[in-house]
């Protein structure tokens, strides 16, 4: 599988480029890495305030802030990954015209850097779990395969965006809009049950909806995820990944010409 070469043969390059992404972040601002944790935290506080006091979401069995956080964190990871991946090639023009190595390494390194951000932001979530005295059981191990599916899906879309953005720079602006709409079509801030019954099938076709529901089921509900939905999400993710990878590799030879 040539697709895996980036992780084996180019391991050191991948880790250097990832470290570059991570280091530049904490060197640029006074609070540095604190922002990675504070951003989603404050976002959660604002939304929790709006939806517990103004809009009033019905009782979910768990406090709304933690319900929201469980969806918001993986969603933020997804949205941030796509955002930075769409710039992964454009922002490395100097290297792309200079030396050859598989170009997807740029995309992978920016996604890994966002995963590091996510893991740090997760610390507050864990603190919240303790604060509310929520217990978990063995089903929490399901987060590992769920996370893997999310990353396959993210990587697939990222490859497409990174290459397309080289040709038309509008892609990155359009992406902001798409992400916003997509978030409201995904049960991030509301539970699936609030969505009209006859339209709920949309969630089946939206891997992010399946993934976020699955996280909540295994972490907050302590139950099994919906295996059938996850299966569909996995298959969709793989189809997108293979298609995007081929698209990316087909255009790779002219990246240096058009950048």
């Amino acid at each position, binding site marked *: 599988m040539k697709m895996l070469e980036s992780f084996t043969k180019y391991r*050191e*390059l991948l880790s*250097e*480029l990832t*470290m*570059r992404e991570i*280091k*530049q972040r904490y*060197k*640029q601002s006074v609070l540095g890495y604190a922002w990675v944790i504070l951003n989603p935290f404050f976002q959660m506080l604002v939304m929790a305030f709006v939806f517990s006091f103004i809009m009033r979401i019905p009782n979910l069995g768990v406090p709304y802030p933690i319900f929201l956080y469980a969806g918001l964190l993986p969603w933020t990871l997804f949205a941030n990954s796509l955002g930075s991946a769409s710039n992964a090639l454009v922002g490395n023009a*100097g*290297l*792309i*015209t*200079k*030396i*050859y*190595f598989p170009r997807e390494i740029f995309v992978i390194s920016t996604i890994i850097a966002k995963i590091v951000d996510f893991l740090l932001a997760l610390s507050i979530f864990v603190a919240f779990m303790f604060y509310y005295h929520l217990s978990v059981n063995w089903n929490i191990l399901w987060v590992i395969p769920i996370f893997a599916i999310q990353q396959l899906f993210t990587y697939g879309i990222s490859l497409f965006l990174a290459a397309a953005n080289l*040709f*038309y*720079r*509008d892609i990155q602006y359009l992406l902001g809009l798409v992400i916003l709409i997509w978030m409201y079509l995904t049960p991030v801030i509301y539970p699936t049950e609030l969505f009209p019954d006859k339209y709920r099938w949309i969630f089946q076709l939206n891997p992010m909806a399946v993934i976020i529901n699955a996280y909540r089921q295994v972490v907050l509900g302590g139950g099994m995820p919906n295996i059938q939905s996850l299966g569909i999400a996995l298959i969709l993710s793989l189809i997108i990944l293979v298609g995007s990878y081929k698209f990316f590799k087909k255009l790779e*030879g*002219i990246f*240096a*010409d*058009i950048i």
Partner: protein
Amino acid sequence: MTENSNIAIKINHVSKLFHKQKQRTFKELIPALLGGEKAVESFWALQDIDLEIKKGETIGIIGPNGSGKSTLLKLIAGVSMPTKGSIKVNGRIAPLIELGAGFHPELTGRENVFLNGVILGMSRKEINEKFNQIVDFAELWDFIDQPVKHYSSGMYLRLAFAVAIHTEPEILLVDEILAVGDEGFQRKCFEKIEELRKNNITIIMVTHVLASVEKYCDRALLLKQSEIIAIGKVNEVLKKYSNNV
């Protein structure tokens, strides 16, 4: 292939067609498509280039702006693909094109040495072993733990050159970088290049400085309007260049 063992690069009837994308945004693209304009415009950047470069040879590529020199270098570096023909490269290539592209201003000199070294194909272990040599060569011990954004452009390029030169390439691609730093450092760079030449390293130089072609190259190649006009002995090609341009 024993007959090819002393050939570093073989360029076989290579042509390169560039597709110039005229519209970079949808705002430009949509009216253009509606008006029946083409979205891309093509032109030949290189036409029917046939060239063999021997191992250990130093060859200088000269020609006016837009003649295809940099495109040829990109094709050899493997970052761009030929439209027609084929290119065979034997040996590890270190490009010195657009020096410093792999540097990040926020990172320290030390971090950048590792970043750039790995980008150029060295392992971390190799870089560790050569780290002292690299910094010695760049003469930057006092600044190595400062972010390179505080470097002067001369210091910046000195470090980049030092890293690239220590990758132990078999083929070195040099694009207009020798106008780097002060005179003392330039002399040092030239000495290093002389040393590489003695070690049978193939060097391909793209430059406007005819003096450096005269000084270092075994052969010269003149490109004009995407074709080879002359190739051979340095002084003959240089004469042709001054008559032609």
